[in-house]
């Protein structure tokens, strides 16, 4: 305990608060000059994500209620000081369900984006690099999937797999594979023709070497941007699947499902059951979109203009 505060004091001595703030301010204003609004958009996105991730990791900091407690308040109670977001038809605290529910949606969206990028990126690299009939066939398949409304595919998969956290992750992941594939393949094709790659080939570099040392690093910058936007999209898809009843079985707090539960109380004027889950979905998706947009502008201003 003592040692801890000692190190704290030492750190403070090295970076006095005033100097630290000043440095931070200078750094921020420099970035502001360089990137303008995009910089602030990205910072706002990161703050939103950080806050919700924090809520997902330690929900007890924000709420004392158990999201499954069916005696948390009155049945269909309107928001008040104790229940900030009100209570639902089973007398559960909605604020607490939002905090715990962030785990589900964040987990599914991030896992889905990871899975689809881990499949889409290598396929895109290979397809663009190898070319030939392999590339042609794979491109045709991916283009077909890409041009088709993704949600409809996700619905089919989710219905096939049935409710469950892993199942819904797979259903969401499937529809984003073509996104990564197309992006990476396109970039690979361009980079393949660049002079330095030609040069490497001319001096007899191995194919795998060219792929990993020259092409992959150049592709990855764009992938980071798309990854962030992809999570935003996956959040919307997960919520949509839950909303139409293809998400998770009961007893797991989930924003989309809470929203669909509230739907039938709409004519009775119970606005809090639908308002708050929707706001949460929107804010979280917005966080990742803002992060992605900011990153895009900073890493590659031309990317999103197209």
């Amino acid at each position, binding site marked *: 305990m003592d040692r801890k505060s000692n190190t704290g004091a030492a750190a403070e001595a090295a970076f006095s608060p005033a100097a630290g703030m000043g440095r931070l301010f200078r750094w921020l204003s420099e970035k502001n000059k360089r990137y303008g609004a995009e910089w602030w958009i990205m910072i706002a996105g990161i703050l939103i994500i950080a806050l919700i991730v924090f809520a997902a990791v330690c929900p007890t900091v924000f709420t004392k209620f158990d999201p*499954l407690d*069916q005696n948390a308040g009155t*049945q269909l109670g309107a928001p008040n000081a104790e229940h900030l977001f009100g209570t639902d*038809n*089973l*007398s559960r605290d909605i604020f607490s369900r939002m905090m715990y529910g962030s785990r589900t949606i964040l987990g599914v969206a991030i896992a889905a984006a990871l899975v689809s990028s881990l499949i889409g990126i290598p396929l895109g690299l290979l397809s663009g690099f190898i070319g030939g009939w392999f590339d042609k066939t794979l491109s045709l398949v991916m283009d077909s999937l890409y041009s088709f409304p993704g949600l409809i595919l996700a619905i089919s998969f989710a*219905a096939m797999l*049935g*409710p469950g956290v892993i199942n819904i992750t797979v259903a969401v992941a499937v529809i984003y594979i073509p996104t990564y594939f197309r992006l990476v393949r396109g970039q690979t094709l361009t980079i393949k023709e660049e002079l330095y790659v030609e040069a490497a080939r001319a001096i007899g570099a191995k194919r795998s070497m060219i792929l990993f040392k020259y092409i992959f690093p150049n592709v990855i910058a764009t992938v980071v941007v798309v990854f962030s936007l992809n999570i935003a999209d996956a959040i919307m898809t997960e919520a949509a699947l839950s909303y139409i*009843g293809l998400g998770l*079985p*009961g*007893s797991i707090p989930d924003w989309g*499902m809470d929203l*669909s*539960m509230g*739907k*039938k*109380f*709409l*004519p*009775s004027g*119970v606005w809090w059951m639908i308002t708050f889950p929707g706001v949460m979905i929107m804010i979280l998706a917005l966080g990742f979109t803002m992060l992605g947009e900011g990153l895009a502008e900073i890493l590659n201003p031309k990317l999103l203009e197209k």
Partner: protein
Amino acid sequence: MKRLSLVLLVLFMTVSVGIVAAAPKTLVYGTTDKVSDMDTANAYDIHTWDVFQNIDKGLLAYEPGTTKIIPALASAFTVNDKGDEFTFTLRPGLKFTDGTPFDASVMKWSIDRVVALKGDPSWLISDYVKEVTVKDPLTVVFTLKQPCAFFPTLIATPTYFPLNPNDFPADKIIKDISELKSGSLSGLGPYKLTSFKRDEEAVFEANPAFYGPKPDVGRIIIRYFADATTMRLAFEKGEIDLVYKSLNPSDIKDLSANKKYVTNRLPGPQIRYLCFETSQSIFKDKVLRQAIAALVNRPEIIQKVYLGQNSPLYSMVANGMIYQTQDFKTVFGDGNVALANKLLAKAGYTAQKPFAFDLWYTPSHYGDTEVNMAEVMKAQLEKSPAIKVTLKSAEWATYKDNWHKKVMPAFLLGWYPDYVDPDDYTAAFAGTSGSEGMGIYFSDKKWDDLFTIEQGSPKDSVRKDVFVKVQKMWTDEVMTVPIWQGDMYIFTKPNVSGVKLGPTLIFNYSELKLK
């Protein structure tokens, strides 16, 4: 001149009154139900059966609003001593709308057609009826495969209704009335269906050829709604005069509280219960099934999930039905944690070593309140520290598949009876063949014998003994736990009266009155 105009005025008024009087009284009725096939050979759902109950009649019928069987197209019937031969005497002079006379041969043609086409409900005939014979134009004889005490209730189901042989094709099931030769669907009932647009609207008009009294409301229009919310709002805007099936609990609560509308709350025949897979699952041990039965808290489920609607059910035999006893109430009560803990301890489960199992539900087949019902039950069961429940769900098609594959140890189901008799609420779950079809897989010769006795005996005292005994035994075997019985709600504008809907759930439009 003045006199002439007066005469003209009077004339005009007479004519206009005449025209107004000629336009039939019209009632718009809203529902979220759907019509399946406009053919008794394949229709097998409550709403389509309702349509047939109104445009056609059986040899026997239910007195509106009751379970009493009364003569309809048959004026009388006799049973032989063994109970496997029913002879019906037909009402003379009956005709279909197009003039085709109704006689014994039409009856035989209709029954044979349903059997031959092998549609979904055809087993309701083919499993019971060996043969139909025409004795003379006004006498028809049903010979059964085995004695059947409840055969009159079967005769009153639409599958047994006569159809017009000049209108219906003999060799194929029809879907829409446009496939009929006459283009409108008419039988021997008080109404005929004159126009039908699937999922949109159906128009019924009084059938001039009907043998009974003319209905007060000459024209009934059914509007089909895609969901309850829309229907409720349309009713509140005054676009429809009557709503029946199915509103959300929240809608029912709001509409009941509104003095502008008339609320008709009636006990319905639908029951909800928890099933156990008894042959090989973790619930093979009946002590565990008893423990679950003790933990279920019916009033709480009804209050939390259904906002106080529906009625607790303490027997598989529905409330208000003959021979019903309340054994689950006396033996287990509601939310009896102490008893459950004792039973669980007997089976070797404690808080340290809890009994864990999957509780299954299906999220849309019984309405979207189902997930709430499962969540509340999970909380109730886990009141015992020796229980750990995981909720699982599957859509209806998968759910049915699952129970045939014995995947689900405990699962929520609901039941609408085919015929209103305690037999259909008991043998269907505890008899070997019925139980297999429900995914319960309970089989015991002792039980099967009891059902055979009850099914074969027309005597009231014999059947009563059996059903009282069976309900008592149920609390020991607990292959299912009865939970609640559905209440039906019909809301009308104040100018509508004559809503009669009994345990049979048959909605007779001809009883409606419009001021």
